């Protein structure tokens, strides 16, 4: 019957169009684009231009893809296209919004004051000045970009090969890809580090860390949207909302710094090796290993050792007994007497580093 055929055609066409639409929404734009043609540039010149470049007024969205296998403390746990938005006016004022579920952490630097807003507990922390000093030191060092670039490249070249590996598109902008590969003598889990540098503004747009035996980057952080141009000045001001407690961050920070220093001293932190197979070794107080970690929800509190047992693999060696936690980009070894070694290296290098003590 004719009507039946019409009906089938309508159903098939509509469903096909709808499904095609759904798939199209999902696929990133410009994934299969041919790389743009850019004038060739040497690695030194590229690094120099990055150091020389001033960050222009820009707005962007940042993606974070973390395929390491363990959450990284300090980074937002969420992995996705859109974990943060960044704005800057190019003159030192800026705004970063970090998404936390449906909440948000916002950092606003309005030129004199840094505001930190956390929507989860509706708190505002205020930092006034103080942080400029560090910035100036670096600025002095970088005042001669040509020398700085040469130094940086030479330092990197000691242990790695640096090359400009063609071009690509990141956030719909043509980029140069600067690739750092460890020299064959380096004992590391990493295969290469790839930095995408915007051909126009020379701002690094994306950083990818690739581990051995992985085709997809273990860690990728970069812009998904990037546009230069003047930004709304209202973005760079922050007025604490009414009824919200504002805490001064500066005084607290000093205490924290002293705490950190004493922690570092007791940790007996040492760096073994250099380049890609650098290993950091240290000592954690034995008390920490039996400390109870409060667990959220119904689960009973667990002590650190049992947590290590669960996360890691037990190993024996000249160092005694320990637990090895391996991820795609790094390994950590914690011995039962509290010694710790961490590096982007295989397990054996950690054991050697502990033996050097």
């Amino acid at each position, binding site marked *: 019957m004719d009507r039946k055929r019409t009906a089938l055609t309508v159903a098939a066409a509509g469903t096909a169009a709808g499904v095609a*639409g759904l798939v199209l*929404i999902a696929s990133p734009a410009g994934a299969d684009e041919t790389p743009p043609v850019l004038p060739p540039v040497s690695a030194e010149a590229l690094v120099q231009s990055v150091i020389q470049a001033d960050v222009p007024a820009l707005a962007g*969205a940042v993606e974070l893809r973390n395929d390491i296998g363990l959450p990284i403390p300090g980074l937002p746990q969420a992995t996705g296209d859109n974990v943060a938005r960044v704005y800057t006016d190019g003159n030192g004022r800026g705004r970063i919004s970090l998404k936390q579920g449906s909440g948000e952490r*916002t950092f606003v630097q309005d030129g004199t004051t840094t505001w930190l*807003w956390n929507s989860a507990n509706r708190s*505002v922390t205020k930092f006034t000045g103080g942080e400029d000093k560090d910035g100036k030191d670096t600025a002095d060092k970088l005042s001669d970009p040509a020398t700085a670039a040469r130094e940086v490249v030479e330092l990197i070249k000691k242990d790695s090969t640096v090359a400009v590996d063609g071009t690509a598109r990141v956030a719909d902008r043509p980029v140069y890809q600067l690739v750092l590969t460890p020299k064959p003598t380096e004992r590391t889990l990493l295969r290469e580090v790839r930095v995408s540098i915007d051909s126009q503004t020379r701002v690094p747009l994306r950083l990818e860390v690739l581990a051995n035996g992985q085709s997809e980057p273990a860690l990728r952080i970069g812009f998904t949207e990037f546009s230069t141009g003047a930004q*709304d000045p209202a973005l760079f001001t922050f007025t604490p909302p009414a009824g919200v407690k504002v805490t001064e961050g500066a005084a607290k920070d000093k205490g924290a710094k002293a705490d950190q220093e004493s922690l570092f001293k007791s940790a007996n932190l040492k760096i073994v090796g250099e380049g890609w197979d650098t290993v950091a070794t240290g000592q954690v107080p034995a008390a920490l290993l039996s400390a109870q970690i409060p667990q959220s929800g119904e689960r009973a509190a667990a002590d650190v050792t049992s947590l290590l047992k669960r996360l890691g693999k037990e190993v024996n060696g000249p160092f005694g007994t320990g637990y090895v936690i391996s991820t795609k980009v790094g390994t950590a070894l914690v011995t039962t007497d509290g010694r710790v070694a961490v590096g982007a290296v295989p397990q054996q290098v950690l054991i050697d580093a502990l033996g050097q003590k």
Partner: protein
Amino acid sequence: MSTLVVRRAPITRVLRSELRMVLRRPRTLIGLGLLALVPVLMGIGIAIATANGEEGGAEGLAALVIGNGMLLPIFALSIAMAMLLPLTGAMLAADALAGESAHGTLRGMLMAPVGRGRLLAVKAFGVASVTLIAVLLMALTGIISGVLLLGGDGMLTASGTSLPFLDALGRVLITALYVTLQVWALAAVALAVSAFTEHPLIVVVVSLGLVIVSGVLAAIPALDWLDPVLVTTSWDAVSEVVRDPIEWGPLVEGGLRALCYLVIGGSIAYSRMLTRDG
């Protein structure tokens, strides 16, 4: 009249009578009334909790809504988005075709010299407009109870900025439209199921099953690649509305996803209506 002239009833009259018929059903009215109560109850609950000083433990939007009345309609809509509003959409779609079929009234309409497409359009209009009414009603009671119970002038956004009242009203309106569009998408699928069966319950079960199964699939990390085609994927994006500046990307993507589901559901429903006999 000496000659028989087939005159179509003006479309506005047909639409108005359909709307009146849907709105006259007791279950529709009860449903609308209960939905309108949701923001009020939430407002009372939050006001009592705040008075008792239980501020800790809240996360996301819930942490922001205390003393922030204009956020209550957005919070209530995002909560109702999880189950109550999809249920309403599915119920309306179930009544529209399967319900009529169960009463035997659909056969009469199919026999009448009325285009099948026109019939489906009128039924879909009924579902769509009552969904819109439900969402707007929730937004309205949310605004009123939010301002009265929780107070606060304007709206405190998740980014820590304060919006004046009119801007906040705009945000509530955007939320209402976005939520409506998402419920329409699910209702379109429900309408397609409704065109196939004469048991309204099946429609509701299938639609809610779709929502629940989508939620389960989205929670399995190994099935991440499925996320873009799930009907529920963009429902969370409603929280973008409370950021400042508002981020349109996820909202636009969610809107497009809903449109795709509208096309799929609509075309399958239409195809079934063409061949249906009663």
